[in-house]
């Protein structure tokens, strides 16, 4: 379990002016383990186009608070989550949706303009995966429910895409290469050959890398890193899997989730993904996951909606009941995710107890692309690293980066700052950290 191969990735990232500045050798210090001996996990659940802040913000604060309308689907989880409100993404809103998304998840404003932009630094899930993802088969598992675009970036011009087929994810995680711990499974005989092939590919990447421009070299590095990760994964798959009581092959999802009446089966797919991701954590295949329900600007059709989601946020009149319903639908999927994680026992508790699950969206009010009142919910708490069961509200429109800093330190990353220049913070959010 402790075979750790340091990745060059973290070093390279740090030199690119990334958000997180590490002390010394980050990976040796960021061990992110609970007292129970189980590892801490990080998960992200994002959706696009925000919410309706007036119907989202709960009444009261601290442990005695009343859930708001839009949070009602999460009622059963009130004691296991902490709702953060009043935070603001502190960048100029030059590019609707994208300014918010980039700054929320990288801590810095985007690079470029509306026509052509990218991130300046990796997103938080990548930063955490760098720190705690090196021990497992997968640095992270990313899935996209409505579409493949997650809001995860390895770095500038290096977007991460999510798996959009639950069946394909199942095949990868629990297919021919999976062996249940304790059972005498057969090692997939093709693993060795695959490694030989990938080794040859790595040779070609090295050879080509020496001939190209500096900018291209960075792109090839990303390619090489991914090939190397894949190679290491295959090597690990030849070893016995970690002996984890809760780990077993889950049931197979549908091969296909065809549209019904021209609408995607969002809930069915999301839940299939949640189940797979939960078991993947229980089997310690990964410690970082990222579920994108739908991307910013998505016009996904929710059940019963008369128009695409993004269109509704701008064109639906009055109180925007369909936008409200869409937010509720997303919260129901979040509730299911909590349930899927909580269903799996781990130590004296469940997988959820050992997780820090961050649910957020790139804006609050969709109609005006507001960057204040950012939707931000933490759940699980990573074995008490952040206290759950509270509503923590900033009445001073504090920088959301502070909350992100708290999340990073809760996962034992030895960071000293998050963000850059005007958005930089050097400490966490006191209110959040005081349990």
């Amino acid at each position, binding site marked *: 379990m402790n075979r750790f191969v340091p990745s060059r990735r973290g070093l390279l990232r740090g030199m690119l002016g990334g958000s997180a500045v590490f002390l010394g050798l980050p990976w040796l210090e960021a061990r992110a383990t609970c007292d129970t001996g189980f590892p801490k996990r990080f998960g992200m659940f994002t959706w696009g186009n925000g919410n309706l802040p007036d119907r989202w913000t709960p009444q009261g604060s601290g442990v005695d608070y009343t859930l708001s309308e839009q949070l009602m689907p999460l009622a059963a989880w009130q004691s296991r989550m902490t709702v953060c409100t009043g935070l603001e993404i502190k960048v100029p809103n030059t590019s609707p949706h994208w300014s918010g998304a980039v700054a929320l998840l990288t801590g810095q404003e985007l690079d470029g303009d509306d026509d052509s932009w990218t991130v300046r630094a990796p997103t938080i899930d990548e930063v955490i995966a760098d720190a705690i993802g090196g021990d497992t088969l997968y640095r992270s598992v990313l899935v996209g429910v409505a579409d493949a675009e997650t809001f995860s970036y390895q770095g500038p011009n290096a977007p991460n895409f999510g798996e959009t087929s639950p069946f394909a994810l199942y095949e990868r995680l629990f297919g021919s290469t999976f062996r249940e711990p304790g059972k005498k499974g057969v090692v997939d005989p093709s693993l060795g050959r695959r490694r030989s092939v990938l080794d040859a590919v790595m040779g070609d990447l090295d050879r080509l890398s020496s001939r190209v421009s500096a900018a291209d070299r960075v792109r090839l590095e990303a390619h090489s890193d991914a090939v190397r990760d894949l190679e290491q994964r295959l090597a690990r798959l030849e070893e016995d899997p970690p002996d984890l009581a809760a780990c077993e092959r889950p049931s197979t999802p549908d091969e296909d989730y065809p549209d019904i009446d021209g609408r995607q089966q969002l809930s069915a797919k999301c839940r299939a993904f949640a189940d797979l991701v939960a078991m993947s954590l229980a089997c310690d295949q990964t410690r970082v996951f990222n579920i994108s329900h739908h991307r910013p600007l998505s016009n996904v059709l929710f059940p019963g909606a008369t128009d695409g989601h993004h269109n509704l946020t*701008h064109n639906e009149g009055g109180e925007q009941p369909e936008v409200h319903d869409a937010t509720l639908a997303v919260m129901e999927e979040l509730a299911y995710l909590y349930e899927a994680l909580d269903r799996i026992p781990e130590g004296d508790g469940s997988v959820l107890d050992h997780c820090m699950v961050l649910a957020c969206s790139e804006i609050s009010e969709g109609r005006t692309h507001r960057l204040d009142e950012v939707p931000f919910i933490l759940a699980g708490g990573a074995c008490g690293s952040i206290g759950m069961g509270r509503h923590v509200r900033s009445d001073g429109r504090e920088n959301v980066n502070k909350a992100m800093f708290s999340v990073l330190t809760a996962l034992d990353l030895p960071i000293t700052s998050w963000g850059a220049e005007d958005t930089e913070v050097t400490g966490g959010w006191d209110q959040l950290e005081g349990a």
Partner: protein
Amino acid sequence: MMQPRLRPVLLAVLALGCGNDDPVGGTDTDPVVVVPDEPTAVPVQPLLRRLTSAQYAASVVTLLGPAADASVRLEPDVDELGFASVGAGVNAVSALGVERYEDAAAQIADRVVAEGALVDLLACEPTGPADRACADEAIDALGRRAYRRPLEADETAALGDLWQVLAEDHGTETAWRDLITTLLQSPWFLYRVELGDGAGQLTDHEWLTRTSFLLFAAPPDDAMLDRADAGELSDPKDRAAFVDELLDDPRLDAGVRAFVTEWWHLEELQALDKDPLIFGHAHPELGPAALEETLTVVSDIVLGDADFRDVLTTNRSYIDPRLAALYEVPAPALDGFGWTELPRSRPGVLGHASFLALHAHATRTSATDRGLFVRSTLLCQPIPAPPADIDTTIPEPNEDAPTLRDRLAVHLESPSCAGCHALTDPIGFAFEQFDGVGRWRTTEGGATIDPSGELDGTAFADAAELAGVLREEPILLPCWSTSLWHYATGRIEAPLATTDWMAEAWAAEGHALRPLLRELVLSDAFSAVEAP
């Protein structure tokens, strides 16, 4: 520097509009075509251009033959400047992307073996693992096709060593299968390497690859690689003669289709999302049929060497029964597609279901979106996003504002909106006589639709007149030249001198696309590359 090219001349006049006059003097000659001098080339930067999904599929077929099933799932293409081919030179592959390359390679290689197609791919069939000379020969042939250049000796040796070990442990068939997966995952296959010869030019093989992908949307085949290997593409005259052969090749059709598909984002037609409760003509086959229509019409214009701007104004189209029903015209063929004249009201590709349905929402039209396409893609006038913090809601249809034009008036009246909406919406309103799937209508909400407007000062009565106005826009050819440049070179930078020259050359050639392609691939600019 190129000399102006003059053809035998009797009439000293440019080709514009004078095509059919009998030449003075009686004998058959071409009218003069004076192509302007190419300006001094600005060399492009060296760049690794990853294959787009479509180029990957074509490359698999070139490498492994038509039996290779290239319908694999790769990570999505990312656009830059509206082109996947440009984004492919900017973005890095993701972890999922690399996994998908491995899965795809396995799937493709397994299929080749299962189909019994392996033996056809081997230039030499080794008798056993020890038959290295033969194995290396086969590896050289496959590798050259995969990497689009001859392998270097140590590359052959490395691949040969890998093959041999695999063959010893698992048999020659598995060894070939794994060799194929190695080639399919190699960066030399996945990236189009354009590093140059060190003296400021693309190598012959790099030029050949770039030209082949532009003209045929596929990598060079063995016959073409043979010419490069033999040095037959170095001399400018040889190169020009070679290009003439390529331009006469039927594969040019695929090249045109790929360019237009990327340029106008037509691949989205494969998954058109229209509410069937609102649009009776919505159907899963409608999008693909619309794609076929538009691509065939454009290709026909190109291969017929007609004025490329006819794509905007021709009424001649290629439709199947479903499109015919949508357009309310008799189907030219009861089964499949056929040529026919559409009504005057449907001008060129802007009257096709492809444009009209793609640039509309699932439940209704979008004048802004249609106007945006014209401005941004056809006129190279990008429109910025709305300011982030304003309320962009428009009123619901009501008695006072029954049509979309009425309801969008709110944007044209507000100072923070009008700047951009005044550029897009008047164009979009011209197409309001076509609903969200492209069906003709004259009223909305009981009120008559008004399709008239102005494009930068020139009035038009309806979409057909707008198309005519667009056709004469001075920026059209420079814009389209720039788009072609971005697509062909995959570069973000488009030197103005080069694209202006392309526009002039295009005009000089009677606005036909094929001669422009010839000028482009033979130009200094197309071949000039800086050292890394």
